[in-house]
């Protein structure tokens, strides 16, 4: 038996209405979810967003920090802060970050980089926070 014929015989008008509505709802939700841009990092200077970098594009951007230029590097879907050397540059300690919600920062420069999105329920080596 041909499939369309079987479907026509097996389904009621209401069945077909439900099929249409649910298919439409799934497609619409799929398109809205898919339409969201890929992962990106937001760069904050003094807690104000100044730069958004898609992690899909390798790049190096220089930004004027409070104490001089700070370089932000994106490579292979990861991002890090470069060059300014200071024991308080938390960026040097964290190195590359890539997971949603992860941050790296140069505290004295006033520069914070955050990967968009919310972290998994237990971020940062499985800890909710590290006391230091």
């Amino acid at each position, binding site marked *: 038996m041909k499939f369309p014929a079987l479907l026509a015989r097996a389904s009621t*008008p*209401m069945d077909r*209405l*439900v099929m249409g*509505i649910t298919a439409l*709802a799934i497609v619409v939700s799929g398109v809205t979810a898919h339409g969201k841009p890929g992962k990106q990092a937001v760069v*904050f200077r*003094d*807690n104000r967003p100044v730069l958004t970098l898609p992690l899909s594009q390798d790049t190096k951007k220089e930004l004027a920090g409070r*104490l001089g230029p700070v370089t932000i590097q994106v490579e292979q879907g990861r991002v890090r802060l470069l060059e300014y*050397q*200071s*024991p*308080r540059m*938390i960026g040097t*300690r964290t190195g590359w970050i890539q997971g949603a*919600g992860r*941050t790296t*920062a140069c*505290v*004295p420069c*006033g*520069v*914070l980089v*955050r990967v968009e999105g*919310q*972290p998994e*329920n*237990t*971020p940062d*080596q*499985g*800890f*909710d*926070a*590290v*006391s*230091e």
Partner: protein
Amino acid sequence: MNPRRWWIMMLGLIGAAALLTWGFMITAPTRMYVSTRLQMGTLVSISTWGVEENKADRAMDLAFEEIGRIEAMMSRFMPESAVAHLNQAPRGEPHAVPEELIGVIERGVEMGRLTRGAFDIGIAPLSDVWGFSREPPPEAPPPTAAIHNWLDARNGLPDQGITITPEQQILLANTAVALDLGGIAKGYAVERALEVLQRAGVANALINAGGDMRIAGAKGGQPWHIGLRDPRNPEGVVAVMDVAGSRAISTSGDYERYFMSDGVRYHHILDPKLGAPARSGLISVTVQAADSMTADALSTALFVLGGEEGLKLLRHFPGSEAFLIRADGTFIKTPGFIGTKAAPR
């Protein structure tokens, strides 16, 4: 089709969709929402659990705002802050400051008394002599004469040279005394930030402000899972604290801000009696207490006093517990401290 039946069907479908949506909404808050900002010279992170994203975001924004407000009043590095004005005011006469600041100073002076001077909120001039807040950080210790001058000027001053007058004004004894509220103001700020979160309906939260941590509630019945930084390995963790309920945790270490000179590590926790970085044999002190101001003051004081003296002091603070790490890597843990040594990786 019978129109009435059609309407019943549509209503049923909409009802089913609403039921599903509702199902998702009640499961959604079992997520953690984290927000991070640069404030008070450190990274401040707030985590919430059990409220949906918009509510969490709004609450966290308000909490950061509150921290910003307190920083603008109590940071000595902000030229327009009440503390900066007080530090610049002529010595020997009382100076009016906001009531809120009086409360924090009062608490700081009290902790100074209780710790017999190991904790001291009046040592901004000494910090400047050492220059730990300079950027880039210094590479050598200051001349000993500068330290001795400071020690002499401070010698014999009651309450570290800070007086709160009956009119609720502040009197600083001389120019060797200037406020550096540092950690205790941070402790106050996270306490206030937690209050703001709770008023906004967030019952489960963790605030981490570089060494000062404040915890409330839990993570869906699970305690907050907190690591304690390995003082000699910035990637590692030496202990694990699984804490639920209302608790403050503060860590003081010689590894946060320091410089090496001639093989000696000069760190930023100054012993007011030496006029120099504390040399108590401890490299990391973590205190758990009921509130962040107490936890912060005690972790600093214990770091300065060392293991034996520090534990004696702790006995005067029932409910406060400590984890001390010595330079050789051995540790002391008081019986009520919530936490276990982490398995070596």
